Every structure is written in structure tokens, then in C-alpha cells.
């Protein structure tokens, strides 16, 4: 194949091109045609004959060289074909990645749009919340009615509980009702207690009262007041000397406006 191409190139370099009209004007009515492959075969035949006649290389050696050249040529051709296939695969992969990238960009833009919408919604809700807070603050002084209502409700529930307990006593005195009825009453009273407690906590009127007085834990050291046998008085403690605190105190006094 290589030699055919070379012959084609050599023929085009050493020939001229003429149109049919030009040939006709030169008085030619027919032209002889020969294919480049035939010329190559003729050249190969001539080269073989020349080598044979020269006696420099044995015909078998010439044939072996030709065969080796063909094998080498086929190997190189195969390699080039593989490279071409690989290049094609890389090209296909690249195209696929570009497509994926394009799709990801589209998704990103879509998500960014959604995020912008969500942020806008968040700002809107926050503004609404602040507005409601403001309204609540303004309305706070007039908010006594619901609290009074709740207090009234608590009072009613307390009365109901007391009434249930009062009814429980005659029932127990008569001893006509069974133990189950007493248990049910107690359960109901307990349930009412819990509800009252929960409601009170919600309203901030629970039974517990906050004490500002500091808790006295001195009782925890009652046992520690006993005189324990020890040798501590005769043992030296480890001491370290450190830098003074005069500058710290001066700075602090200055900060407090005292220096």
C-alpha cells in the first residue's frame, strides 16, 4: 500500500494534467490507461529481478526481508488503528462529560433559584413574625382578660376537685359503695391535680415559689467539723512564688475609674 501511494505521488509529480478537449485539440482521440497498482507491481518485479541479477542478496533472503517488512508494517498499522480507536473513545467520553456538566449546571441554576425563593420566603416570614411580635408587645397591656379567664378556669377546676373530695367522704362513711368507686374518685382527683399543675405551670402560677435567698450547704460539713487525727500541722505545704499583681490591680482600678 505504501509503495502504491508513493508511485501515485511520483506519477503526479512527473506528469501533467490535461482536459479531454485539450487532448482532442492535440489530435488524440484515445489514451492508454494504467492503474498505479500495476505500476507498483511492475516496479516490485523489476526490483526483485535486479536484486536477483545483482547476486548481492539471495532470493530467499530478499523474500524474508520483504515478509519482515510486511509484518512490521502490519504491526505499525495495527498500533495506529488502536490509537485511533482510543482517541475516538476519549472523544466520546469527553462529549459525555460535557453533557453531564451541562446538566449539572442546569441543576445548579435551578437549585440556586429555589434557594433564592426560599430566602425570600424566609425574609417574608421573619418580617411577618417581627410584625406579630410588635403587635403582641403593643397589645400586652390589654392582655389581662385571657389571663383572668385562665385563672377563673383554674379556680373552677379547684372547686370541682374540692367538690369531688367532699362527695367522696359520705360515700366512704356509708360504706355502701365499693372500693372501686373510691379508687376511681381518687384517680379522678389525682388527674385533676396533675391538670391543675400543668395549667398553672403554663400560666406561670405554679405551686413552686422562687427563692432568692442563697442555699446554705453548711450542714454538709457537719461530719467535717469533728476533730480528726492527722499529722498535717507538721507537714510543709508545697509553695510557689509568682509575679506580683500590682499592675493588674492598677489597670482594673483605672478601668473602674478609681485610679
Amino acid at each position, binding site marked *: 500500500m505504501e509503495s502504491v501511494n508513493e508511485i501515485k505521488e511520483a506519477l503526479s509529480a512527473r506528469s501533467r494534467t490535461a482536459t479531454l478537449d485539450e487532448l482532442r485539440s492535440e489530435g488524440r482521440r484515445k489514451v492508454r490507461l494504467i492503474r498505479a497498482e500495476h505500476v507498483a507491481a511492475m516496479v516490485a518485479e523489476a526490483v526483485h529481478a535486479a536484486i536477483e541479477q545483482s547476486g548481492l542478496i539471495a532470493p530467499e533472503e530478499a523474500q524474508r526481508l520483504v515478509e519482515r517488512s510486511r509484518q512490521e508494517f502490519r504491526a505499525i498499522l495495527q498500533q495506529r488503528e488502536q490509537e485511533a480507536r482510543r482517541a475516538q473513545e476519549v472523544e466520546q467520553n469527553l462529549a459525555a462529560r460535557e453533557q453531564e456538566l451541562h446538566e449539572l449546571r442546569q441543576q445548579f441554576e435551578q437549585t440556586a433559584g429555589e434557594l433564592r425563593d426560599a430566602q425570600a420566603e424566609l425574609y417574608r416570614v421573619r418580617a411577618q413574625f417581627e410584625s406579630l411580635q410588635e403587635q403582641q408587645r403593643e397589645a400586652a397591656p390589654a392582655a389581662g382578660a385571657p389571663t383572668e379567664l385562665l385563672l377563673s378556669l383554674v379556680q373552677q377546676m379547684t372547686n370541682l376537685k374540692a367538690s369531688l373530695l367532699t362527695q367522696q367522704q359520705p360515700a366512704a362513711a356509708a360504706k355502701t359503695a365499693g372500693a372501686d368507686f373510691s379508687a376511681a374518685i381518687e384517680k379522678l382527683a389525682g388527674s385533676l391535680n396533675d391538670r391543675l399543675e400543668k395549667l398553672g405551670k403554663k400560666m406561670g402560677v405554679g405551686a413552686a415559689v422562687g427563692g432568692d435567698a442563697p*442555699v446554705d450547704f453548711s450542714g454538709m*460539713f457537719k*461530719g467535717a467539723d469533728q476533730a480528726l487525727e492527722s499529722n498535717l500541722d507538721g507537714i*510543709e505545704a508545697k509553695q*510557689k512564688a*509568682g509575679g506580683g499583681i500590682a499592675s493588674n490591680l492598677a489597670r482594673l482600678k483605672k478601668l473602674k475609674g478609681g485610679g
Partner: protein
Amino acid sequence: MTQQQNTTNPAATQGADTTVALGKGLDIGTANLAAAVQNAEGGITVTVERNAFLDIPSDVYSKNMLTKLKVPYVVHNNKLVVIGEAAFELANVFGRETRRPMCDGLISPNEQDALPMMKLIIQKILGEPRVSGENCYFCVPAPSLDVDNNVVYHQGLFESLVHKLGYTAHAINEGHAVIFAELAENDFTGIGLSFGGGMANACIAYKSIPCLSFSVARGGDWIDKNVANVLGCPRSKATHIKERGIDIRDPKSREEEAVAIYYRSLVGYVLQNIKSRFESGQNMPSFQHPIDIACSGGTSLVGGFIEIFREEFAKIDFPIPIGRIFRSEEALTAVAKGCLVAAAIGES
């Protein structure tokens, strides 16, 4: 920086000296107890004792032997209780664990009968008040981010104890005390960190006013516990490895490697929590200039601590501009010194 002094009973010397400024500072730490007082030379004297004890069978021979060896003991519930540093040393010798009155920065619920021992140690290091009702500021941890701790009980308990010793007791946050001790040059503006035995305490202050304080329940004990777990040894052995003068940047053995790993983990954990807390904190002051971070506490004494701290700090995107990061020159006694500053300013 620090040097040993040949002083006998601090109670006697401190009680006798009335020429120096009044006020005392007390650091009630999980690992160490330290009391600070101003001395006649214009400096301060800090008396330190380890907050641990060890009970051994009581007999006459042991008592005599301990006294000869100058090992402090108390007889409690018919047991001989060795207290302070000596307890730690004896525990190492016998391969036992010391008993610890405090856990995670607070009085331990498992060691209720340790209160008499703590009272004795505090009485010994604090000495008698020089005047009746002398101010004594003692440190308390800030509320913890990672455990549910009862600071109110702890504070009330030690208020009562200090009061019983004849002082007027005031509580001060541990991180705040570090700011009083270390950030005077910055007008008491910055971040004070105390890496103690049971906790790490943090406080950010602006011109001495604390803006945010919190703690995490990890400290030297957490390192000891984990090192002991991975090495399969008692905790007191792990403490000994940690305190024998290693450099966590250059561990020389498997044991030191374990200590270095958990130190880095502790620093990273504390920094992440500080960052997270500062980011979520409302009403935080805005600083025009970078602020300094002062580290203190016994756990920060290990070699290479501040370098590791800076390395871990560089890994996070801290929300506040930071200038210097340094370790207190007297890391073990910085909290006591800060308490003393607060007490002295209260007296003036």
C-alpha cells in the same frame, strides 16, 4: 519563673503577716487545689496541693512511718487516709488508683465522704484569715456544653466551706479568673482558657466584663482515662507518663504517642466548641482589633502544648480576629492568681 520556697506552715505565716494587702484567691480544681496570697516582697505566694487521697489500713507502725517520711495523713472512719501529692505517688508505687473528691470540675457524687478531706486540704493551703471576714474569691466552672452539671450545688457547697473557715466567700468564673491574671495589658479584653484536670473553661471578656462563659467536660483526666484504656494501665500511671516532661510534638514511645494523640484531640474538641459557641452566641461584642487568647491550667503545662494549640487553631475558621495565642508563664497557678486579683480589688 516559679521556685520552691522554704516556708513552713502557710497557715501560721499567712496568719502572722498583716502588713501585706488583704484578700486571697482559691483555685478549686479537679486535679489540684491552689491558694494565692500577696507577700511582703510585692509578689504572690501560691500554695498547691493535689486534690486526691488514698486510704490504707491504719496501724501505729504506718502512722509513724508516714510522719517520718513527712507524708500527710488523716485518720477517718478507722482508716489512714494519705492526702495530696503523696497519695498520688503512693498510688503509683502500689499500682492503685487514687480517690478523687472531684470529677469533671465539680464535687463528685461518688465521693461524699471525701468532704472532710477536702476541707482539711483547703484549710491547710488557705490558712487562717488575717482579719475576720477577709475576702476569698474561689473559682467555679461555667455551665458545661456537653454534660448536665450542677454548678449551683458545687458553688453553694464551697461558699459554705470557705465561710466556715472565717472568710467572706465569693465565686468567680474560672475563665474570667484567667483574664484577670493574664490579660491586664489588653485591658482585660480577650479570651481566657483554663485547661484543667476535669474540664476546659472558656471566657470571653470586654474590658473585664465577661460576655460569654462556658465549659466542656474534657481535660487532663479525659486524656488519662483514654491513654489508660489504650495502654491497659491504671490512670495514675497514665498521669505519670503525661507529667514526666514529655513533648507532645515529638513523642518518643508508644505511651507518649498515645498521650500526644489525645492531647491533640482535646485541643481540637475545645477549639471546635469555642468556635461553635461563639458563632451561635447572640449579643456578642464586635472587636475592632484582634484579641488575644491566654491558655492556662495544669493540662497546658505539657511540652509543645501551645504549638499544638496554634496548629489546631490554624485548621479552623475562627469567627473572631485573633492576635496573640500564648500560654501563661505560671499556667498551674494562673487561676488562683486571677482569683487573688478579684479578691484584692474587692478589698481595696
